[in-house]
């Protein structure tokens, strides 16, 4: 398997499918913790991104470049998507694209790790939230951590599976956190027990490298089961 443009484009498209498949659940999470538009914001962003990928005629030149679909998605999220989360996702895609560029024409695990790390740093600079504030950082940070630990010879697809596991772990943690940034912060304790929708979005991104996620409940519930174990 070559981790070229076809791979990253497939990844984004599957992410789009995951978001569309789970949009009602995402909406419900943001209704409990925020203003209920997260599913719509992310869904709209991916619809636009997929449309931009469809339209893209750059396939001819530098065809193999893994960077291109990430760049296109970054621009769409930065330019067109509303809500707090939209442009933050855009920043992550922008950093992933830069790191892919550094390792062009194919994606590498160290490149993915560096891009995710840089994306996390950008989101932290911009959003001024810290881990534990119950934001998408709580999924992005463990994903970056997982990628950092991956051996250099692990293939990017396998690395992304590891990242997704880290992210889901982080998502489940958010259910126990009290929000301190963003809209959810005004609601205080009323939202404890509910996972952060933005964090779920991040986990969906990493999980979609491998296939399409169609249901959130099992992924959010896992931890509860773990906890029930003696």
């Amino acid at each position: 398997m070559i981790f070229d443009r076809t791979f990253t484009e497939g990844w984004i498209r599957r992410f789009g499918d995951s978001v569309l498949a789970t949009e009602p659940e995402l909406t419900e999470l943001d209704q409990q913790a925020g203003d209920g538009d997260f599913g719509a914001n992310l869904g709209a962003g991916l619809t636009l991104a997929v449309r931009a990928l469809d339209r893209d005629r750059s396939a001819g030149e530098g065809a193999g470049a893994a960077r291109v679909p990430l760049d296109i998605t970054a621009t769409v999220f930065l330019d067109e998507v509303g809500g707090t989360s939209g442009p933050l996702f855009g920043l992550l895609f922008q950093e992933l694209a830069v790191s892919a560029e550094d390792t062009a024409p194919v994606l590498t695990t160290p490149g993915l790790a560096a891009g995710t790390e840089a994306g996390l740093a950008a989101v932290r600079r911009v959003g001024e939230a810290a881990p534990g504030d119950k934001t998408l950082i709580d999924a992005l940070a463990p994903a970056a951590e997982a990628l950092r630990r991956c051996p250099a010879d692990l293939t990017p697809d396998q690395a992304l599976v590891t990242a997704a596991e880290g992210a889901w772990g982080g998502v489940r943690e958010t259910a126990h956190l009290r929000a301190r940034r963003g809209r959810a912060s005004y609601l205080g304790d009323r939202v404890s027990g509910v996972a952060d929708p933005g964090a779920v979005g991040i986990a969906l991104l990493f999980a979609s490298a491998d296939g399409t996620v169609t249901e959130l409940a099992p992924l959010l519930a896992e931890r509860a089961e773990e906890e029930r174990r003696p």
Partner: protein
Amino acid sequence: MASYFARESESLVSDALDGFALAHRGLVEHNVEHGHVRALRGSPERRVALLSGGGSGHEPLHIGFVGAGMLDAACPGRVFASPHNRQIFEASRAVARADGVLHIVKNYTGDRINFAIAAERLAHQGIPCARVLIDDDLASDSEDIAVGRRGTGATVLVEKILGAAADTGLGLAELADLGASLTSRCRSIAAASAAHTAPGNGLPAFEIPANYLEFGVGIHGERADRSIVHEPLDALVERMTDTLLNALEPPAGASVIALVNGLGSITRLEMYAITRELGQLLDARGVHLARSLVGDYVTALDMRGFSLTLLLVVEEEIALFDAPVHTAAWRW
């Protein structure tokens, strides 16, 4: 759309921008595609472009301060809503000078995030960018409010002085430092006797009982955290001035620039009466009123109230304040 004069409430901001560009053609250009207002005649000596932006409804801020001696561009959002990072990004790219672009950002979560994202994007394009964060409003100065003090009237004074400083050819870091220093010496406080009219339904955004004031309002039509009995103006201005002086702790014989700012619908008679009280109080407190600016500078639509801003200044800053400026809302 009960009482606003508009075609429809959704088109008010964009229609106003069209009209603004018409009234001030030759001075500014409205880039409709990218959503910014840009100076047509800048200062050739500048190495750093100055850019600001924020929700609409605060006019003349910011578009009224685009022009020679102040801002190179401003990005208006919808009413009381942050501009999109793309507007800021595109405007910054359009006006950036050799030494980059300085963002003057009022401290509101939406503005902070959108300006920061634009800054990330500019960095990716190799365009140097720094930020001055304006956080002068004492009413939001509290341990409980993690996001910090809101940015209000100081914006205008900082934009003016930084504009003049940029025209002397200062670099990005120097300007950012000067901006931070000015901001640290600038505080504001506001009071209102009536809320603004909500653009959607034409009703007051909230009710203030007769004979009460909201003490500590912001500029987005939010209530203050305190209601007080409507007291005579001398008492009210004393309360506000002392709040400001307690926070600024001016050294003996210090000079200040004062902004007596209407929030939308108070009359100039009232603003000047306020200026009189302020002048007398500063005199009595041994503070020298070096300059005063009186009028509608940072509004909250048609809120019936005013803010007082004091900026501690040194001589060179007064000279920068006095430097020529040619914008729609401020010219000398």
